């Protein structure tokens, strides 16, 4: 068993037995949904349906229904795409990177964060599909032998890299999430009393029985998937940034983009996790498993990644002047002081100033403040993408072509609609899936729960001799 320093705060408060963990996670799923859930679900469903309607209208009429023009050929569509992909990054990051670093606090958030990843990447994926205009030929983005004179996709194009990156990321995240879910579905299956629930969970649990060999494989597969997913997370958002960085547009053509996008993605992803988890812990009464310490850890990640993003903004600004390239310089000067100054100012305030407040212990341990900042950060990160994309192209080399972007109600409808759809999926997840990893939480009870930590030391000593049989892939 892993020993943990006594000074380290417990991750599970109170005296929780294995049975208590099962009950605490399963009961909210098995009982009737609270009224609040129905209200939120209806609300999300209405917004989501509106979004679907807007998408249908767009597909039926054409991309002209977006507020794009000759100068600004990319605006809300790609902004929303990058925003959602960014949000989708924290999930696998939390699961994979924190697993590799043996961070036990990940168990409080990994399941929900992975679900968030998957739903966010769904939403992100909608935008490029819509932008194609003809959804039904979306498969043309894959290198499939064809009869159009052997017309292949272009492997030199970052947009194609994106196809591979996003689809790999989505499918690997789903597998990672689902493999972790199987033992917990088995728990729900074995507890289920109603026949329909029993049947559903027994299909979902794939017949998991919890044999020693199955667990042995489970741990290795989780570890190897984490090892594969970690570079994947970094590569995916780097590739998303290549969409811009490999172009020749001043303001986009920057080598700093990959690390800066990855940091930004983690930053916004953790903020979204905070927003969602603070709601879940309250609704499901999971305060014992996700308490102030976890929130503080996440706030520290937000602070660090927010600072990286801040440094990136400032170096970008400095280098644009230092490079001596007029066009580069103008792109940034215009960004900060031109007609879109307000977007730049919102971005700077939300992303650079607000995370710095987390230096104060009082603020980063305040739940209300965290919730507020998590929303501010996500607004800021939306503006970041908007600023990068629109302000760089709205004043191009020909002043006669200079323009502004005015979103139409379809732009807004689709964006708001994807937020609605995201919450539809997320609320369904909350309702029917275990929101905490039941099996994995049980593995940290003895090392990190308040009760066991406060036991006198002698209690642990009786299994010293077993330490030589340490499994190599435990965590």
């Amino acid at each position, binding site marked *: 068993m892993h020993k943990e320093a006594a000074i380290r705060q417990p991750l599970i408060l109170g005296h929780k037995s294995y049975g208590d963990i099962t009950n605490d996670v399963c009961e909210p799923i098995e009982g009737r949904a609270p009224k609040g859930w129905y209200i939120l679900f209806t609300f999300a469903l209405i917004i989501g349906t509106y979004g679907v309607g807007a998408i249908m209208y767009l597909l039926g009429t054409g991309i002209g229904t977006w507020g794009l023009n000759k100068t600004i050929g990319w605006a809300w569509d790609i902004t929303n795409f990058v925003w959602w992909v960014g949000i989708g990054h924290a999930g696998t990051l939390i699961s994979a990177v924190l697993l590799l670093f043996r961070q036990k606090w990940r168990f409080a958030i990994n399941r929900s964060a992975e679900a968030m990843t998957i739903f966010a990447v769904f939403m992100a994926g909608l935008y490029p599909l819509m932008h194609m205009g003809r959804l039904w030929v979306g498969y043309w983005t894959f290198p499939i032998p064809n009869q159009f004179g052997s017309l292949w996709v272009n492997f030199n194009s970052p947009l194609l890299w994106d196809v591979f990156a996003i689809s790999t990321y989505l499918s690997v995240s789903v597998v990672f999430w689902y493999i972790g879910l199987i033992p917990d579905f088995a728990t729900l299956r074995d507890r289920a009393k109603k026949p329909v629930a029993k049947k559903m969970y027994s299909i979902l649990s794939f*017949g998991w*029985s919890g044999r020693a060999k199955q*667990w042995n494989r489970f741990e290795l597969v989780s570890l190897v998937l984490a090892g594969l997913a970690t570079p994947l997370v970094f590569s995916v958002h780097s590739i998303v940034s290549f969409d811009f960085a490999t172009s020749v547009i001043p303001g986009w053509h920057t080598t700093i983009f990959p690390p800066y996008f990855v940091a930004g993605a983690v930053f916004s992803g953790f903020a979204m996790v905070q927003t969602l988890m603070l709601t879940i812990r309250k609704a499901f009464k999971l305060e014992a498993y996700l308490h102030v310490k976890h929130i503080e850890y996440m706030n520290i990640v937000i602070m660090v990644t927010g600072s990286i993003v801040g440094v990136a903004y400032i170096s970008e600004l400095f280098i644009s002047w230092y490079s001596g390239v007029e066009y580069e310089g103008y792109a940034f000067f215009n960004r900060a002081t031109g007609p879109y100054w307000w977007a730049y100012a919102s971005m700077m305030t939300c992303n650079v100033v607000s995370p710095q407040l987390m230096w104060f212990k009082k603020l980063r341990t305040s739940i209300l403040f965290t919730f507020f900042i998590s929303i501010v950060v996500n607004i800021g990160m939306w503006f970041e993408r908007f600023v990068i994309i629109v302000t760089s192209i709205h004043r191009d080399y020909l002043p006669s072509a200079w323009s502004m972007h005015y979103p139409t109600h379809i732009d807004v409808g689709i964006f708001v609609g994807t937020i609605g759809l995201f919450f539809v999926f997320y609320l369904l997840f909350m309702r029917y899936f275990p929101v905490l990893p039941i099996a994995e939480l049980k593995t940290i009870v003895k090392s990190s729960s308040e009760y066991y930590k406060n036991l006198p030391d002698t209690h642990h000593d009786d299994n010293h001799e077993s330490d030589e049989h340490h499994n190599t892939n435990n965590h």
Partner: protein
Amino acid sequence: MADRVFYAMYDDDDVLKKGAKKLVAKGIKVAEVFSPMPIHGIDPIIGVKNTRLGIMAFIYGLTGLCLATLGMYYIMIVDWPMNVGGKPNETYLENMLAFVPVTFEFTVLCAAHGMALTYFLRNKTLPGMPSSNPDPRTTDNMFVMEVRLSENSQYSQEELQQMISESGIVELDQREI
């Protein structure tokens, strides 16, 4: 032939581990352990070998790497070389840098999915498969050790029962199979 199976139930993983060690020391073969969570260190005691899925993941990844390289070599160099701005792609090496992202993604894709599929098949966990844990509580808070009489014929049924009962169990379930 009918076989008698003992399901020794424990409410704590460490007690089970100690119990298993004691029984194994007496030459008893533990057929299986069912638990609601991974019990670290139980595998060497009951003789479960470490999985080789990691090696498979590496092989799948290597396959992906080769497929991606060959695919892009054929598509971009052999079948339809492009001339972008007077810079034709004549050889794979000259263009390799542009192929790195997709090669990497495809390697990860094959390694992850190949491993996951092998994992499901080897575990015999597939959609709709029936579960085989002896007690529904083994996915909640019970840790169960399975001992078969046929595999421990040096002891009588009573002797086995006696020894299992002394290993810290909370319940003993016996079944004829």
